[in-house]
């Protein structure tokens, strides 16, 4: 395996770890729909970058973070029950992205690609992943309190709006790391699926975080192996998600809830 491809696999595993942690709180905050929206917000940026021939990740990051702030404002002003507004953002991002992305690049933008990455790209991904993991660890208590009851969290001294904003940005950063090989359609799926599977198997927060991360790592590793040995698709995202969905189905055999 070429060095660039090995770095891609290593970065994918780091992404898996971050996704497993971030996904736990996405599930607890009942923001699965919002998560999907956030990952799709990268599509217009990717499209513009492909069109104007600059680094797609820069374009993706720009619309991703701008869109995240928009979703956060929507949540802050209207609450997550305003799924109609979130749905509008989702549909708009997808439509704009589909309109501006050159046809030959659309599949890559949606499902990711398996091209090797540079050392710089790897280190940027590594820093982003460490930032995500560290943020989740530091925010764990604040997130747990605000998920349990925003009023109680505020009364305890937690700035719930700020915690939500940081969480959204951390979520976006995680999506950004996974964008290259999972694409905008599937990046958020790996954030949600392992957490949903772990939820069936655990009742305590620390176990939930550990099991979700482990499932995410196994899914990505198995996805790469299966794709290399069996499916041989041009992108690894679908294989990872199919394997992850399979684990989710199996988790019903031993669910605790």
């Amino acid at each position, binding site marked *: 395996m070429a060095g660039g491809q090995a770095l891609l696999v290593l970065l994918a595993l780091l992404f898996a770890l971050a996704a497993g942690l971030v996904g*736990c709180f996405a599930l*607890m905050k*009942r923001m699965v729909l919002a998560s999907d929206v956030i990952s799709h917000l990268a599509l217009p940026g990717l499209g513009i970058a492909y069109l104007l021939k600059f680094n797609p990740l820069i374009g993706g990051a720009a619309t991703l973070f701008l869109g995240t702030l928009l979703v956060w404002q929507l949540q802050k002003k209207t609450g997550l029950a305003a799924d109609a507004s979130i749905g509008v953002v989702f549909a708009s991002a997808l439509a704009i992205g589909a309109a501006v992305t050159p046809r030959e690049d659309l599949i890559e933008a949606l499902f990711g690609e398996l091209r090797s990455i540079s050392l710089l790209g790897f280190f940027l991904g590594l820093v982003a992943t460490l930032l995500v993991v560290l943020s989740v660890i530091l925010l*764990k*208590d*604040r997130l*747990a*309190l605000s*998920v*349990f*009851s925003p*009023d*109680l969290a*505020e*009364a*305890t*001294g*937690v700035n719930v709006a700020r915690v939500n904003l940081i969480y959204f940005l951390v979520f976006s950063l995680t999506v950004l790391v996974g964008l290259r090989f999972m694409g905008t359609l599937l990046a958020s799926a790996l954030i949600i699926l392992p957490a949903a599977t772990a*939820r069936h198997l*655990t*009742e*305590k*927060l*620390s*176990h*939930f975080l550990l099991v979700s991360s482990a499932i995410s790592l196994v899914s990505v590793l198995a996805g790469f192996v299966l794709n290399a040995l069996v499916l041989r698709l041009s992108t690894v995202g679908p294989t990872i998600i199919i394997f992850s969905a399979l684990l989710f189905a199996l988790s019903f055999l031993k669910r605790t*809830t």
Partner: protein
Amino acid sequence: MAHPVLSVRNLTIAFGRHVIIQNLSFDVPAGNCLAVIGPNGSGKTVLLKALLKLIPYEGEIQWSRDARLGYVPQKIAADRQLPLSLRDMLAAKASFLKLPSREIDQICAEIGLTQDLLSTSIGHLSGGQFQKALIAFALLGQPNVLLFDEPTASLDELTEERVYELLHSLQRSRGMTVILVSHDVSVVYRYADMVLCLSKGKPCMGPPKEILTPAMLEDLYSAPPKYYRHVEDRQKGS
């Protein structure tokens, strides 16, 4: 009179053009139990949330410098399916406030939450256990003021009685100030030092014996005094 732990002056709370509370002023002396009563929609919960600075308001809410607040909400809209054990919930607050973890065990022992319950998922707690869990949550950090918003709503009568007994014994043993929202006039009569009536008309405040008269309650709730006969009986008996 003990120094006021809370002074409220000209408090007005409105949601848009809808004024909930207008120009309300009162003091709460340290160590007292103030009960807040009033019909649905009179602003009892809104008042508590303003006192906790959770919602915007006009006027002045002044807590004494040494006031440490604990809050037991009316109901938690939290998802009971959350993968959080009771210990997770209490540990999150203890960790955020940088409290030693032994405080969790001390408080749980004090209010009768066993180690088994601590490792139970919050979704599997009974209504009474969940209410005790919320009280334990409020007591973390050694508060000297507790704000209770109908702490026994949706509990059966026996559990309700036990929760109020617990509150009362906590208040006495720790010398805490309590601000209690309740619909139960007999509870208010038994435990409160002062009663604050919120109504669409002019709010009033005073000792239970002066405030909880059948005529006042009829006026407050727009219901015949027969619903509050026990109050009249208590007054005759006292």
